[in-house]
Every structure is written in C-alpha cells, then in structure tokens.
C-alpha cells in the first residue's frame, strides 16, 4: 500500500531573539490510507509543530528548514501557496484543541460548514445546505436541522468539537489531523468524541493523525504511535507494542508515571526527574540522557538514531528497555 503521506527528515525551526529553536529536528514517518496514527509527547516536544508543518501553517518566526512532506507524492514544502490553500481543508483537514476559538462567533454553525465546502467545490447553496445538515447528523448532533441555525455560543464544548469535526470532514479529506481534540473537554464528553472519531474513521476511511499528551486517548483510538521527545521521534510502532513492550526509556517512564484506573495499588508513581531540554541548545548525545535512569556512558556522547527493536517497532536508544530491565543495577550511570 502506498502511503498517503510521507514525512521525510522534517526540520522546522523558530528563529527567536534568543537563538534558533529546533522544534522539529529530523522527523520521518509514513501515514497509510485510513490509518489512525497517534503522536504523543509533552508540551514543547514538537508534536503540534509537526502537524502545523504538514499543512504549512507554521507561523513566523518559525520556518520549515529542511525535509520533505509528500502528500500523494507531491511535496507540500515546495508547493505553491495557492496549491497549499487548495490542499488545506480539502485533502488534509485539521481540528484544534479549543473549538470555540476555531469557530467564528458571529456566523451560524451551519453556514460555517457550508462555507468550508464551497471554498473548495462549486456547489449550489441547496446542495451545500443538505450536505451540511447531513454532516451534522453524521457527527451525531441531535436535531441537526435546527442546530444548523445556531451560533457557536449556543453549542456546548462537546457539540462545538463535533461541529469542527463535521467541518473537517466536509470535503471528504484523505487525512484529518486532530490536535488535542479532547483536552478541553470533560471526560464523559471526551469518551464520546473519541468514539465518534473511531466510528468516522471506519465509515469514511479518512486517515487520522491524533496529537495528544494523553497515553490513554491514544490507546483507545490509534493503531500506530509515534512518541516524540525534544523535537525527535524517540520510538514508534504498533500501539500494542508501544504500550506492552516499550523499548525507549522515555516511553517506558511515561507509561509508569501515570496513575492507572485499572491498577489495584497505591504505590509511588515513577517520576521522570528534571525538565525537558532547551531546544536552542539541546544536550549532546541522546537528548533524553539527562533525565534517563538507564543511561550508559555512550548516551552522553553519541546521538542514537531509530533502530529496529521489534516487529515494526523502532526506538532511538543505546540501551533499550529489554537490556535496561535485564541489568537494571549495572546500567545506572
């Protein structure tokens, strides 16, 4: 199967007064048609900037400084502005964390969905209207015909995110990028939105890139996961492998640091000491080494690249958890 999207050695940097922030520093991955891919990491790891780069939405002083983003073979990085505008919302749609600030407060929700369609396709108002109502139904908004006439403030947070998803799907895109789509929502609403995304992925075969800091959210929706740390992918693989057999100490530590509802104990949580590095001057060697409890001498010097650590699974680590857990004591620096 040919990937619908190939990101190759993407570099996005921000040219600030303090120096060059290497927000995304050599990220490569493929996305297959209809796939659900999760990108997880903490604030500042480059997950959102990766997503914005795919749509060429990175704001000044940021710039894509290297690499390729191939959408069905054509490079988004080199594309003419008009072509990128055509791509956005039509082939690749994006929804954001805060649906209220993504919607225009003075326009009716239904109108905004029609607008999204008419920006890319020449269709009559009548067709747009019936299709927009249909979309609202598809995202399970009750009484879609009457809610169509509502303004964003008349919608609840969950409903607004549904409307955003409807808008995102309006042009039947190949890819929907969802950047923390449920972070601002309550848990019961979050569960509903995730279920909706899962159903829509099956119904429409739209590939989904889900960007989140929440490991639980990824586990429920995605088939494959990229774990990012300090501008790099540190581990990638099928969701089962990443959650059951993580090989990068960062992935492993993240999973150990969250209290789990299904764990029957009140033990101390494993905490990752220290803070993520400054991306103007990232540490030498492995970027995670200052916080890594399994580091060896080599980690201080040499920067590891992604290597095969399991079926379809890669990790950028000199130690890997298999060896770290086998010789925990000795491995500590």
């Amino acid at each position, binding site marked *: 199967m040919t990937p619908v999207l190939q990101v190759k050695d993407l570099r996005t940097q921000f040219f600030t007064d303090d120096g060059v922030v290497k927000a995304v520093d050599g990220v490569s991955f493929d996305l297959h048609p209809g796939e659900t891919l999760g990108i997880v990491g903490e604030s500042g790891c480059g997950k959102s900037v990766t997503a914005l780069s795919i749509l060429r939405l990175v704001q000044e002083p940021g710039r894509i400084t290297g690499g390729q983003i191939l959408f069905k073979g054509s490079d988004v990085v080199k594309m003419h502005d008009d072509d990128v505008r055509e791509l956005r919302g039509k082939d690749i749609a994006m929804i954001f964390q805060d649906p209220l600030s993504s919607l225009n407060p003075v326009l009716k929700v239904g109108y905004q969905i029609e607008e999204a369609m008419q920006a890319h396709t020449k269709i009559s108002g009548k067709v747009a209207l019936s299709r927009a109502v249909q979309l609202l139904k598809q995202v399970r908004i009750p009484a879609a015909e009457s809610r169509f006439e509502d303004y964003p403030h008349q919608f609840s947070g969950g409903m607004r995110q549904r409307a955003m998803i409807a808008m995102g799907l309006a042009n039947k895109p190949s890819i929907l990028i969802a950047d923390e789509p449920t972070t601002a929502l309550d848990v019961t609403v979050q*569960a509903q939105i995730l279920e909706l995304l899962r159903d829509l992925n099956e119904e429409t075969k739209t590939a989904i890139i889900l960007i989140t800091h*929440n490991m639980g*959210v990824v586990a429920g929706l995605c088939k494959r996961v990229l774990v990012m740390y300090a501008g790099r992918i540190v581990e990638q693989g099928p969701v089962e492998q990443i959650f059951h057999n993580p090989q990068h100490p960062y992935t492993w530590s993240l999973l150990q*640091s969250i209290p789990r509802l299904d764990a029957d104990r009140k033990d*101390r949580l494993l*905490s990752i000491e220290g*803070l993520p590095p400054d991306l103007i001057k990232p540490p030498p060697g492995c970027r995670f080494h200052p916080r890594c409890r399994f580091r060896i001498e080599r980690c201080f010097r040499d920067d590891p690249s992604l290597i095969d650590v399991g079926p379809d699974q890669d990790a950028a680590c000199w130690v890997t958890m298999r060896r770290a857990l086998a010789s925990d004591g000795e491995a500590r620096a």
Partner: protein
Amino acid sequence: MVKRVPDRAALLRAEEVVKHFPAGLGASVKAVERVNFEIYPGETVGLVGESGCGKSTLGRLITQLLPVTSGNIFFEGVDLTKLSGENLRQKRRELQMIFQDPYSSLNPRMTVGDIIAEPLENFGLLRGKAKDKRVQELLRIVGLNPYFNNRYPHEFSGGQRQRIGIARALALRPKLIVADEPISALDVSIQAQIINLMEDLQKEFQLTYLFIAHDLSVVRHISDRVMVMYLGKIVEVADSAEIYRNPRHPYTKALLSSIPIPDPDIQSTRRIVHLSGEIPSPVNPPSGCRFHPRCPIAQVPTPCADLEPPLEEKARDHRAACHFSEKVPVAV
C-alpha cells in the same frame, strides 16, 4: 471543654452547605446544594466531578474564600461560617489552599522568597534571619534549590511553580490543605513529581488533603476516600478502591467508564456508559434526582423525577444518592 461535634473526631465537617450565586432577575446559580461530609485527620479525600459541578466552589467554601449561603462548616469543632475578622484570619492559618494554575497564582512581581514569606509576615511569626531560614527550609522541603529565593516566578517551569505554591501553603504549618486541580496544568512527566511530593509531605507533616480534580485515575491513586459531585450535590462517597470496584451511582459508573486506560487491549473492549444530553443548567436543576434526565437506569416520573434520593449508606462506609443503586452494573 467547648461543645464538640459528635461522632469520630472529624477534622472538618460540612453540614447542609449551600452556595447560590446571584444570576440576575432573581435567579441564582445553585452551585452547591445541601452538601454534607466529613474529613478525618491524616486522610486524603478526593473530590471529583466534571466542570461546573461545584467542586471548586466547595473547596473555596471550606477555606472560607467564599461565604456560604447557608449551612455550617466545622473545623476542629469550630464553625467557620460563624467566624469573621481576626478570629477567621487566625483559623485560616490551619487551612491552606493550592491552586490549579501555577502561573496566575503567584505574584509575578514578588520574588519567590517573598511569596513564601508573605504568610509568615502576615501572621507576624518570623522576621529577619529566622524568616529567611524558614523560607530556605521550605524551598528545600518542596525540592527546590534554597538559594533560588531571590528569583521571580517567571524563571521557573510550571512544575517548579507548583512546588512554590506548595511551599507557600506549608509555610504556616496548616492541618488541612485544599488542593484544587493541583496537577492538571502540568505535563504528564511532571504530574508524577508533584503527586509524589504531596504524598511525601503528607507523611512528613501529618497533613490532611482535600484533593479536587476531574481525573478519577489521579484521584484514585492519591485518595483514601473519594466523593463524586454532580450538579452541586455529592452523589457518592466511598473508599477509593471500593468506589472503583463497586460504584453505586450510575454517574460514577459513567465517569469511570469514560476514563481512558493506557492499554490498547483493555481500551478496545471497554464499554462506555453513554450519558444522554448535556449537564443541565445549575440555575434550574432538574426535579427529583438531578441526574435523572441523563441517567441510563432512571425510572421516570416515579421515583427519579419527583423524589430526591438521599445520600445514604449502601454498604459499609459507602454512601450513594440513588433510588436504584443496586442496579448499577459492576465496574469496567
């Protein structure tokens, strides 16, 4: 001896606490409605619920940052709602609060040392060298470099700022700390640091916590007992392991089923309890059980829509407010 509240000696006891906020035209937001509970010395009580359920308001009522509309809050047998002025101020020493947003809860124009010393100065406890020493000790206790006392909040990360907020709360050696979503603004890897710190401090200083959060998995981890709130009412209270194993209110059950578990195998086979509709307006809460319009097992109109279920004991140390608590399916 002054007349003490009956029962096991609760550190804090809320009786029929009500808070209404005026909402114009004679209407009012019924944020907290006739709430009763106790907090015992040394325990951590988790308070969970979704946005707008009244959990933060309840936290602020307990610390008397907001006056109650009616009801009583006894702290060590003294009714805080009857105190005012200097008497209340003195009592507040023992009741401190940690806030959600470590960015807006620290004055950006004060040094960290001054922020932590402010409560000491307010109560005229320490001055000069002794005060500086105490500030440095507090910084060390919360895991910060004691020589950072001359720095400003903006020089610290979110997690470090939350440590500063904790140091400030500890300055007066309080008995009860109300922590309102203390980790929800922090990154995942930092959350564990703060949770562990709070647990260590509890052991070291025999603290009692009211831990307010929307994340039931965090609350379950840190709490001995959990209280679940919905639309201004406490709907369930139980031991934290028990409430997870055996929820007796359909809302608790729905909340639990919604929390994502970081395990793809479990996550793909779980059944989410869907709640119909949205949280109703607290200006005009539904009649009877406030949860009935969204409840999957409600029997309308009788009894759920016309009779408010009392928060009553369903099992040992397990209270729930539901007419059909025995019909709530077992967890996960």
